[in-house]
Every structure is written in C-alpha cells, then in structure tokens.
C-alpha cells in the first residue's frame, strides 16, 4: 500500500486544494483579509480613518492613494477598515445560519415521518417569502445598525443549507455504517452526530464560503437602503456615498470599496468551487 492510499479524506482534499494554484491564491487572499479584519478590530497598526487630514475630495495622489472623502478623511484607510465590517458580517451570519441549517436539516432528514413533515412545512414557508422582503422587514423592525444586519442575514441564510443537509442525511441513514452503528448499540444521538454528520461536513464548508460572499454583498444592498452600519466605514456605506459623488467626478470611493469587495468575493467564489471539487469523495486520489 502506498502512502497515497493511507491518506485520510481530509488530508487528501487539502493536498488537492493546495495543488490548485488559483485556489491557493484565493485562500491566501481570504486569510489576508481576515488578518486585516482582526487588526482593525483590535485597532492596531492600520492607517487612521477617523480624523480629517486634508481638504475634501482630494483626487488620489502619493500621500492619499485613494484620495479623500467629503470630510477630508483618507479613503484608503476607510477601505482597509471596511474589511472589518465585511468579514464580521460574513462570520457572524455564518455562525447564526449554519448551525440552524445543519441542525434543522439533520433532524428532518434523520427522523423523517411527522418531524420531517413539520420541518419541511417550516422550510417551505420560510423560503416562500422572498429573501429581500425578509431582510427589509427584519432590519426595519430591529432598527438600523450592525446587529440588525447580522440577524437579518443570519435568519435568512439557513434555508438552503437545511434543505441540502436534509437530503444528504436521508441518503446516509440507510447506509451500512449507520446500520453497523445501530448493531453495536449506538443511539439516535450517536448515529446522527458522531457517524452521519462528519460525512456531510464538506457541504457545510462549501456553504460557509457561499454564506460569506452572500453576506458581504447583502451588506452593500442593506447599506444602500439606509439600513446598514452606522458610524463606522463599511464598503456598503462607501458605495452608497458614491451616489452623490459620481456627478461631481469623485470616483475613488466607489472604485476603492468596489475593488476591495470584488477581490474577496472573487476569492470566496473560486475557493468555493475548488472546495467543491477537492472535497468530493468520488474524486479522491485523483
């Protein structure tokens, strides 16, 4: 038996992932953004965005790479700090949506019967209301600000994953390894959480990468609607500011925020696709 054959699925998936050059670059980009977000949160080592340092709307130059905004603040520093909101929106909404989706989907798929009927009804009901209506309603009711954005995106984000996990768990619960677990006296809890769930983890990982980019893009829309983050630079509010600025020829705020967002969403996109390929057990060892 060669060393290749003894590799675990995860080690194999990882080695396939890093062999894909684009996926590796994307992973590095995501990690760099995450690092910047951490630095911005602890407030260490990043350029200052709060103070007015020059006159309003300076075009990009050697000192201010992306020019200045209405208050003479450094747009480049704002873009950098916006990373914090973007990444935290992605992280917090994933932390809300993914456990809900996994739990609800797993319970429905595993137990079937009337439990599945009720949960399926719940999923159908929830997905019948267009996401944008739910987002608007939740943020309208909870008030403006970051917490509402987290909640709104978290509460709307679980449906797709729940449906996916439900279908996958249904397939798995009749497999031999689960029957084997029953035979040695494993209970429902043990079979579902110890045996089946690790086999659907790849769906969770792929979905997290999807949830991140959806959240980052939705933050911009909510900010445009005036429901977003207040009092802190975010790419959404910067793009929203550009509505008034473009007619005056001020393009740098829009360009900076759009590009920063483009790069990380693109990285999540490519990473998501690569994860799907590398985590597919059917492709193991290829």
């Amino acid at each position, binding site marked *: 038996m060669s060393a290749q054959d003894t590799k675990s699925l995860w080690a194999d998936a990882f080695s396939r992932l890093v062999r894909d050059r684009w996926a590796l670059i994307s992973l590095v980009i995501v990690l760099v953004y995450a690092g910047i977000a951490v630095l911005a949160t602890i407030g260490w080592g990043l350029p200052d965005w709060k103070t007015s340092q020059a006159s309003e709307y300076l075009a990009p130059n050697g000192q201010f790479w992306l020019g200045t905004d209405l208050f003479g603040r450094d747009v480049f520093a704002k873009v950098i700090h916006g990373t914090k909101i973007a990444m935290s929106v992605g992280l917090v909404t994933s932390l809300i949506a993914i456990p809900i989706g996994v739990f609800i989907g797993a319970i429905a798929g595993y137990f079937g019967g009337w439990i599945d009927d009720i949960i399926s009804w719940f999923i159908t009901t929830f997905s019948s209301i267009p996401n944008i209506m739910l987002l608007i309603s939740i943020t309208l009711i909870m008030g403006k600000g970051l917490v509402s954005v987290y909640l709104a995106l978290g509460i709307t984000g679980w449906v797709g994953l729940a449906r996916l996990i439900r279908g996958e768990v249904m397939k798995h619960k009749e497999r031999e390894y689960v029957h084997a677990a029953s035979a040695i006296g494993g209970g429902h809890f043990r079979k579902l959480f110890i045996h089946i769930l690790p086999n659907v983890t790849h769906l969770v990982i792929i979905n997290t990468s999807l949830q991140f980019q959806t959240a980052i893009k939705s933050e911009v829309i909510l900010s445009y609607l005036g429901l977003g983050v207040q009092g802190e630079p975010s790419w959404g509010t910067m793009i929203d500011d550009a509505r008034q600025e473009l007619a005056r020829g001020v393009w740098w705020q*829009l360009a900076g925020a759009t590009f920063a*967002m483009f790069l990380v969403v693109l990285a999540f996109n490519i990473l998501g696709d690569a994860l799907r390929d590398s985590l597919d057990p059917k492709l193991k060892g290829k």
Partner: protein
Amino acid sequence: MTTYIIRRLLYMIPVIFGVSFIIFVLFNVVAGDPAPLLLGKHATVQQIHDLREQLGLNKPLFAQYMDVVKSAFTFDFGRSWATRQDIIEMIRQGAWPSLTLTIPAFMISTILSILLALVVAFYRGKGIDLTIRFLCIAGQSISSVAYILFFQYFFAYKLGWFEISGYEPEFPVFLSYVALPGIIWIVLSLGPDVRFFRTVILDEIYQDYVRTARAKGLGEITVLLKHVLRNAMIPIITYVVIQIPFLILGALLLESFFSIPGLGGITLNALNSSDFPVIKAMAVLSSIAYILFSLLTDVLYTLADPRVKLK
C-alpha cells in the same frame, strides 16, 4: 395529475398560515406599537388610543393574527398608512412599470444565458470556456449597487445614451426608460445563469445516450440542441420558473435608482416611511406567487419529461 394539483393547492393553505404567522410575528409582535411613530412626539394618549382602535391594534394578538391570515386569502390589505391609498390599487398601478422592465430583461437574459452555456459546453475545457467562466465569476463578484451606479453614471449621464431616470407608461416611450435598467439586469443575471446552465448541460454530456448519439454519427451541435438540452430541461425549468415571482416583486434596487414607479419602488417607499401594511401586503403576495410558481414548475416537468408522473 389533477389530484396532484389539488393536493398541492391544498398544501398552500398551511403554508399561507405559516407565512402569515412569520409576518404577524415580525410586524405585530416584535415591531412594537407603531401608533406613537405614526402620530409623532406630541400625540395625546387619546389620539394614540383612537389610532390603535382604528388600526385594529388593541385587539387580542390571536385576532390580529387572524386579520393577517384573512388578508392573505381575501387580498384585502386595507390602506397604506403613508398615502391612505387602497393597497391593492397601489399594487395594480405599480405592476405595469415593473413588468415592462422585468419581463423583457428576464426573457433576454435567460435565452442569452442558455445559448452562451451551450457555447461554453461545446468548447468545454478550451480557452473560450475558461474565459467566459472566469468573466462570469468575476462579474458576479462585483456589487450590484456598483454596477447600477457606474452604468447610470457612464451611459446615461456621461454619454447621454439613455434617460437618467423617470418613467412614462405608454408604448414605446417606456422603452427609453427601461432600456438601461434592463441592460443592467441582463448583465447581473448572466454570471450566475451561465454558470448554472453550464453545470447542468455538462452533467448530461457524459451520459451514455450522448455517446450513442455521437456514435451513430450525429454532429456535436445536433447532439447538444436535440439531445442534451432536452434532457437538461428539468433543472433549467426549475431555475427559470422559480424566478418569475421575483419579477412581479420588481427589481427593487433598479426601480429605486431609476425612479421607476413600480412595485419595487412602492416597497422601498413603504420601507422608508415605516408603512407596515404595504410591506406586509408585498410579503404575502410575493409568497403566494412563489408557491403558485413552484407548483407550475412541477407541472411543467411532466411536459419536459414524460417519465415524470405526478402522484
């Protein structure tokens, strides 16, 4: 099939109860008392009491929930808090501008995406496939708000090719107003659509029947159009039909940027003035549309694939 449709229509009832419940919880329970909000800071206790009476907010919660359910079945949503207009009348007026924007844009983008997907599937793995796929992913990674801002600024304001904003309901005048938002819609849809259709087509392309078709000497184009596309129809139908309810809701962002007085615009105005009944009505109506169209998808399956039997 008739029994199936009847059963699905009956299943709508618990779903509508569920949708009403979510909307009720959001607006009648979590949202708190809207009366002080509507009357302003200087309202007297008597005024607030009268308004609550008038809006049915001093009823027990269960009765308020039944009001939401009733509105979903009778389509009687009452009047807007902001404009005092009958909500169903507002929606009837907003439907035309929305549909003149979304239907042509939706049809063009769907057909264009399917054609593009066939082209990239034909050249799978080659340069043109990789380029279009990369453009799709890259295009999808840019914020829709950024697209709208840039296109409006560049094509309407700078170059003056299109109207910057506004709307006229007469044909063909409305075309000059909906053309640019329509183009933005198409550009926004191409990325996800082409990627989805490509995957669906490639799932079919390695099937045995495709090998058989090639083996009997059919050209690749005939294979793609007559065999592969036909068999890929089920996921394509699901994907396309389920988007239709969202056309009715209108292109929320596009309408507000281009001042098109459609349903999306109505929803956003309601949002800005905390006009709960209008938002509730839009949420209920779009959910009902969603349920009806997902039923339609299932019925269309039987047309696309005779093997599908609805029981």
